[in-house]
């Protein structure tokens, strides 16, 4: 009744265009590779990768980035999705507005925000100055740069998260709300109907944005290039810089490390989510 043929087209494309090249990359991670030829050097690349003085802060930044972006996206987009499903008038208009940043490329968003976040001429700090608030050096302060990119990532990604939540909330049968309406309060509606029943949507948002956060690259690269210095480096930017520098074997090893790290973090998450899903 569920034919195995449904696997075929997907598996073929995925194998040829993704799995095979990835397996090749595994092999190359064990070599010193110049693109022109490769010499087998065992695990030297891995040793080199872990010896990197900047690795520790890169690893930290990666985790901070993934946790913050996925957390903030859930916290912001779930209430937003509620508002845009039941709340405000003009909700069609707002839905379009919030989706606008999603339509624009990370490169364009990065360039724009790097400009708005300029410490003395940028609009954000001019506004803060007007209100008499402190004006941080968003991208120039080494301690702050990574958080500034997190903010922009959330700005750009909240539209998609909200869309997924709207879909989740919309699929809740109306009877549940009728039952909740008897009790009257929005909070109850939220706590006892929406929160539990949009659990799947929440998992999807967390999972997608967490993995997206671990893999983040475009925005960091356009806004700070991992800088100032190495202050906002994440694993992908470290790997990419090695790749750009021509250390193809080393960067392949970095990719493998990234893969393993994400596996370790994400696999238990999916297990837990799957179990909770079954309980529903």
């Amino acid at each position, binding site marked *: 009744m569920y034919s195995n043929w449904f696997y075929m087209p997907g598996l073929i494309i995925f194998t040829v265009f993704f799995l095979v090249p990835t397996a090749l990359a595994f092999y190359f991670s064990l070599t010193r590779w110049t693109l022109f030829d490769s010499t087998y050097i065992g695990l030297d690349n891995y040793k080199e990768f872990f010896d990197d003085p900047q690795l520790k802060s890169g690893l930290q930044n990666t985790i901070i980035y993934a946790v913050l972006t996925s957390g903030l996206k859930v916290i912001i987009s779930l209430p937003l999705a509620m508002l845009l499903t039941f709340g405000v008038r003009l909700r069609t208009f707002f839905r379009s507005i919030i989706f606008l940043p999603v339509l624009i490329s990370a490169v364009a968003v990065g360039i724009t925000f790097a400009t708005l976040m300029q410490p003395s001429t940028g609009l954000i700090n001019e506004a803060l100055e007007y209100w008499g608030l402190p004006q941080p050096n968003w991208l120039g302060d080494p301690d702050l740069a990574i958080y500034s990119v997190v903010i922009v990532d959330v700005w750009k990604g909240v539209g998609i998260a909200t869309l997924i939540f709207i879909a989740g909330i919309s699929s809740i049968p109306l*009877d549940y709300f009728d039952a909740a309406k008897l009790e009257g309060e929005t909070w109850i509606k939220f706590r006892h109907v929406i929160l539990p029943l949009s659990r799947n949507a929440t998992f999807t948002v967390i999972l997608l944005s967490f993995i997206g956060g671990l893999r983040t690259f475009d925005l960091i690269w356009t806004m700070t290039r991992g800088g100032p210095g190495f202050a906002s480096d994440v694993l992908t930017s470290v790997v990419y810089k090695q790749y750009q520098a021509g250390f193809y074997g080393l960067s392949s090893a970095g990719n493998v490390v990234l893969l393993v790290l994400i596996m370790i973090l994400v696999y238990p998450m999916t297990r837990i989510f799957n179990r909770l899903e079954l309980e529903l």
Partner: protein
Amino acid sequence: MTLRKLIGILWLDSVVMVVFSIIFIVPFVFIVLTAAKSQSESALLEFTLPEKFLLKENIKEVIEFRDRRVLLALKNSTILTIGSVALIVIIGSFLGFVIQRRANRLASIVSTLLLIGLIVPPAVVPTIYLLQKIGLYKTLISLVLIEVAIQLPFATLIFRTFVASIPREIDEAAIIDGANPFQLFAHIIFPLLRPASVTVAVISAVFIYNDFTLPLYFLPGEDNVTAQLTLYSFRSQFNTQWNLLFANVIIITIPPLIMYIFFQRQIVAGLTAGSVKG
């Protein structure tokens, strides 16, 4: 509805409106303002009204740049996006359906493989070698297939979640009525997956259209330029024409914007379809 409640709702409305406008609209205003400036004025990167409003001239200059390269790029990007998205929705729904329904060993192996795909960045150079071996390098079709391979894991995840909410009794009823597996899928399951299809289509269309890195590596050559690559025309290591760069941003954002406005009704309808059936 009591008066207090009404005021409460209105208040919420206005606050949301103000916050929205500032956070989500101001950056776009900045893009438009900069795109309307002269080159030297735009180089200051300030949030000010342009001395002279040159938006039309700048857009025209961008379009005319290098034999209307940006129009060619829009055409290429459109083909790339539509082709990839169609395949992703069809193939992704196949996979989501069969993986969710056959919860056996093969299904768990395939989902693990797909999870890897969700995580691992693509390996650029091995892929190019492979493409050359099968004679597909530098073709639009190869980039379509690569984008499909990369988007498939996420699409499958979404479809799988949605298939889970369709009761199996529906399948059984259809089979008893004499449908074969493909008829079951095409006539019963796929239409029910519409909210998922819309979600997947929108998200992957946006991703593919905005993708910068993959076309850069897999589709070299002047004739194969895509929308995002045109941003390089005015931005280089040493010299950036900010006004033209932002005019270019506007031009390449218009097609997805029109698409979104045009299809918004369907997107929202598709997304909310679930509740009607609920």
